[in-house]
């Protein structure tokens, strides 16, 4: 029965990774932009939530409601004024610019908030748990997974049910033709990145509640997020959730065998999936 518990904990952990990855998957799917600053943007979101909750004395969940529009604005500006200029067939310029943004955010946060680790607290909820037969579920991990599913459900509704989503899909498939139909791809991209950073804020909320964070943890979170996106397949949001869960379960199983193997097991699972399916499990679009 211990294995059932391990796998369930892995699935819950996968929810967190799927949240990290959902914003990345959105941007990657629509404009093939590899955002190496995504992990640091999540950490930036966590500091925004922390600041809002200390300044206004708010619960982190309410503070996230203040941080989310700020992050949307930041994403919009970043895409409209910086990232749109470097999109193209060559992957190096966007990779480099986002690498630069990553270094600027990391060191800016170090200057502003010092290297001390921080945590968001929600009182008794922090450590609350539910017992379901042999398995004990932490309330926060469960809430994380539910939020991940909800985020992906909502993003999919936007994608397939709204005019904005149609514009997303059209630009993803063929930006030039979409432009002929009256869509302004640059504008669509800016909204997409704004939306991605709103999702990043939600990820930041759970990251900050569940673990300590400091300015330098972004890249490590980013690598799990990328693995989830790539395992899932380009442009498939449900695939990203599946990818997050694959990484989460692999890490939980690795840790159960030897605590030092946790992270390694996740990476090995990533390599194993890609060796069998180089384009991921559920690729929607052609890259």
């Amino acid at each position, binding site marked *: 029965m211990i294995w059932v518990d391990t796998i369930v904990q892995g699935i819950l952990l996968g929810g967190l990774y799927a949240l990290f990855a959902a914003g990345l998957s959105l941007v*990657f799917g629509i404009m*093939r932009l*590899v955002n*190496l600053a995504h992990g640091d943007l999540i950490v930036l979101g966590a500091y925004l939530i922390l600041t809002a909750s200390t300044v206004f004395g708010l619960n982190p969940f309410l503070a996230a409601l203040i941080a989310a529009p700020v992050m949307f604005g930041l994403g919009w500006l970043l895409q409209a004024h*910086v990232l749109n*200029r*470097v999109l193209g067939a060559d*992957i*190096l*310029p966007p*990779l*480099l*610019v986002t*690498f*630069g*943004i*990553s*270094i*600027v955010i990391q*060191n*800016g946060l*170090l*200057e502003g908030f010092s290297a001390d680790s921080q945590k968001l607290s929600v009182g008794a909820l922090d450590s609350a748990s539910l017992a379901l037969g042999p398995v004990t579920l932490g309330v926060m991990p469960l809430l994380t997974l539910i939020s991940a599913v909800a985020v992906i459900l909502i993003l999919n509704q936007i994608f397939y049910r709204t005019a904005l989503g149609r514009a997303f899909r059209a630009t993803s498939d063929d930006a030039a033709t979409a432009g002929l139909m009256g869509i302004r791809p640059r504008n669509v991209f800016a909204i997409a990145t704004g939306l991605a950073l709103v999702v990043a804020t939600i990820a930041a909320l759970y990251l900050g509640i569940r673990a300590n964070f400091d300015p330098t943890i972004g*890249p490590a979170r980013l*690598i799990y997020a*990328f*693995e989830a996106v*790539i395992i899932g397949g380009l442009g498939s949001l449900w695939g990203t959730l599946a990818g997050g869960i694959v990484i989460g379960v692999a890490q939980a199983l690795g840790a159960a065998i030897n605590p*030092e193997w946790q*992270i*390694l097991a996740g*990476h*090995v699972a*990533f*390599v194993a999936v*890609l*060796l069998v399916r*180089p384009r991921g499990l559920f690729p929607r679009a052609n*890259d």
Partner: protein
Amino acid sequence: MNHNSKIALPVALAIVAALALVPFYGSRAIIQDLFTVLTLLVLAMNWNILAGFAGLVSVGQQAFVGTGAYAMFAAVILGGVDPLWGIVIGGAAAAALSVPIAIFTFRLNGAYFAIGTWVSAEIVRLSLAQWKALGGGTGTSLPKGTTQEMFGVQPIRHLLGISNAAAADVLSYWLALALAVATLSASYLFLRSRAGLGLQAIRDNLEAARSVGVDPARLKAIVFVLSALGTGVCGALMFLQITRVTPDAAFSVVDWTAFVIFITVIGGIGTLPGPIVGVLVFYVLQRLLADYGTLYLILLGLFGIAIMLFARRGLWGLFTDKTGIELLPLRHRPPRTATPVPGIPPKIVKEGT
């Protein structure tokens, strides 16, 4: 040979000679600073060949730095060999490791390739952190005095009349200089060769290059392995000088890949003098802003972003565009015939010949 490249060689030789003579008049601090600059330059030149010429945007070069360092430490501590042999073994181990990494990552395209190299480096880091004989996650040091008993230290000590430790620094410095010169010469000769021409043809137009018989996969694999070799040798040398290795330091994505990418891009990616210009900019920024904590990193990031937005070919590219001066030119000019004969393809003449 045009005017510029005629003066370039004597100037380059003079600079190398001046650098080689620094230990005779410079202080130990200068030697150590120059050592850092030269090793960063070697890493940057290797990444430049990969990304700027072969189109392989790797974010995982720390895999080879770390493997080179660890293989050298293993050879010295467990095998008891001279550290100089350790450096050779470090390079060989990095080159050997690059084969399985290439087999995995070459199946992935563009951005997937970048992430694949990064994950590969993480796997190597986490695996080596399990190697208890080399200290596991906390790392290990070379036995005391190893570097001072290294082959070549004693003659240098007598020649310069300095302490053992200073002589070890001088030896490392000369090795770094030799490695930098070798890497630059090898890059130039390789890029001027048939294979190098093929490589640049692939970069400019994959389909056209294929249609005239260039094999992209083979050429890229060769470049990947060779740059792993250079990076591994450099990693072994850097950690020989530090004499201590930990998985986190040896496999740092920021130190061995992010900085190196910025240096290359600021200087001018896809040009041979680019990394040299970039490493000088990096060094000056670091020195000027040494008292302001991480400010130089923020400026480096912003500088890199600005270069990508406004001058893709970096500072060296701006310089050649403004002045028309090209050092180490790689372009091949068609022959200057007044009236091309239809139907007969023009013979390609190398600029350097």
